């Protein structure tokens, strides 16, 4: 039996199923999956048509961290904790925004859970509303582009750093463009006792305005431009970074997505483009991305 799919309802070209399946396979199916409300939940958990070959629970939008903590606590109390890894799959809205409280509680108490955030940079299930993971300049339905506004004003929250600040044993960022690297990170995470946080960049074809032909390429460009650095922390120490031989200008990543296209025409677009390049440069500096 498959661990995840086929027959789920994700859009053609959707990025996150690659990560979900990859994670469960990396753990040999020894997984209890906890899922927050969102795209993944909607495409995979219709009553009578669920797509999960591992035990699965969905409760609410904002409580996956606490539900996972409760499951882990129960397994410990019942002496079943060697049975499976408790793994959360939550979107960026559930992780960065509405569910950060329960995630913080989970990490603070250091529950033995692998929390995987599939980051598609907006509330994509409900049609592309901004989250705190939405990058500057992105067009969403709640940060529309108009005369006075060039898409989202503000920054993308650095959740990996927030996770690290909880003194958890393992935190990493990953991308669906590098599935082997992601799977290695999931496996590595499973070797630690305590809370683990992995954030995996997963393009959304509809929200980002791309088609499946670009799913992998756009995810790769996010890494290659320095906008989505792939980093790995163990016990708060940066242990590994994906180096870039020839870091590409952010325009290469931005221009192929409809959500950023206005930046090249809008009066205020230049400032945002500069800001995005600055973010990439700062990432390069901070993590030593340039080989």
């Amino acid at each position, binding site marked *: 039996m498959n661990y995840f799919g086929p027959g789920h309802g994700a859009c053609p070209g959707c990025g996150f199923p690659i990560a979900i399946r990859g994670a469960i396979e990396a753990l040999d199916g020894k997984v209890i999956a906890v899922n927050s409300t969102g795209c993944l939940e909607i495409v995979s958990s219709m009553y009578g048509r669920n797509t999960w070959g591992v035990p699965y629970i969905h409760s609410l939008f904002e409580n996956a961290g606490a539900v996972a903590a409760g499951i882990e606590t129960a397994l410990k109390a019942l002496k079943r904790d060697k049975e499976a890894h408790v793994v959360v799959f939550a979107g960026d809205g559930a992780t960065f925004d509405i569910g950060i*409280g329960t995630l913080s509680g989970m990490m603070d108490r250091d529950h033995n859970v692998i929390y995987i955030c599939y980051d598609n940079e907006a509330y994509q299930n409900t049609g592309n509303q901004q989250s705190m993971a939405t990058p500057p300049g992105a067009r969403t339905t709640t940060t529309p582009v108009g005369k006075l506004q060039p898409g989202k004003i503000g920054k993308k929250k650095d959740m990996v750093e927030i996770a690290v600040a909880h003194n958890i044993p393992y935190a990493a960022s990953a991308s669906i463009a590098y599935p082997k690297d992601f799977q290695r990170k999931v496996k590595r995470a499973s070797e630690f006792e305590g809370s683990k946080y992995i954030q995996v960049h997963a393009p959304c074809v509809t929200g980002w305005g791309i088609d499946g032909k670009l799913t992998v390429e756009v995810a790769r460009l996010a890494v290659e431009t320095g906008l989505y650095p792939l980093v790995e922390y163990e016990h708060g120490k940066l242990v590994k970074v994906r180096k870039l031989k020839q870091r590409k200008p952010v325009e290469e990543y931005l221009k192929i997505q409809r959500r950023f296209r206005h930046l090249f025409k809008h009066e205020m677009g230049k400032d945002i483009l500069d800001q995005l390049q600055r973010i990439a440069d700062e990432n390069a500096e901070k993590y030593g991305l340039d080989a």
Partner: protein
Amino acid sequence: MRKVVRGFYAIAEAVRLSRPNVIAAYPITPQTEIVENLAEMYANGELGDAEYVTAESEFGAASMVLGASAAGARAFTATSSQGLLLMTEVLYNAAGMRLPIVLVVANRSVSAPLSIWNDIQDSISVRDAGIIQLYVESNQEAHDMLPLAFKVAENRDVLLPFMICVDGFKLTHAYEPVDLLDQETVDKFLPPYEPAVKLDVNSPVAMGCYAPPPYYMEFRVAMECAMERASRVMLEEFERWYELTGRNWGGHVVAENCEDAEVVVVAMGSVVALVREVVNRMREGGKKVGLLKIRTYRPFPSEDVRKALENAGKVIVIERALSIGAEPPVTADVKSAIFGLDAEVYPVVMGLGGRDIPRELVEKVIDDVMEGKVKPEKRFEGLNEFEEVIP
């Protein structure tokens, strides 16, 4: 063993004896001492293999017991007031997922204005969640109902959360003599938890699936059916409890002096004890007064209420919560239960936010109704006259 103990201890001790696997909670006045006692038992190794966790919020605590229950654990939490409101989304969810968690609510008013004192607005506000609600009159009743709550909730004909409502401060902090249960008695009554379904890698299931329109309504109606079955299961367990301990708490309601009463006072929670005293004294004075104690509020025991009020010409409902803009909550349920009977219903709202309910006031309320001094409509007693001023 009979001991003079405080309410929170009686509750915590009964939780311990029920052998929960997971306790997750968050402190809030006046519930805090319940979980403090449990935390201490945990620290002293008195909770067996159970895990005790202080969550980051009541929302987190409720979510943790939800997850624990889904994983196959017997799970407990306790809260009050704002904490219960913060849990509300999770509690609706747990009920819909048919998870038999048990919680104690130390009843407290809700903000604003902020008040830590007692009324039952908090638990009344979640009456529609699909959670069994039982209001207790004493700490002995609270102590006894805990093992029973687990047993009823976990019954496969039920599978719904169970909430025991205990008046904050008035009971939780009161010293009362309580016959404390022993482990042997509780074990005889409450078997180890065998979950109907659980998260298990050896037989994967999906919990919390979403239901499209062809299914949703059936799931919600199935909860209604379970609640109806809970009514029967509870009566059976009340009976078993009586046989085992010799303490008879009655059924969903307890009717006292109702057969020939001209006026029956309906009450829930700790105020029942006061009303009983007043009623008994008035009886001695020759007044035909009765008392109807409602224990089970959800499922609402409509038939029992109707039967008890069959001969009552006048019914006073003591309300300690509001449904602002409509009839007070218990009155609405009582009226619908006795619809068609020839009885006048007098809703009397009192004791909100810890406002004292003196004995004389209860007497006056009954006398006023007996003597025809008031109309059968919503009234507020123990209220100061006031005028609203916009600053």
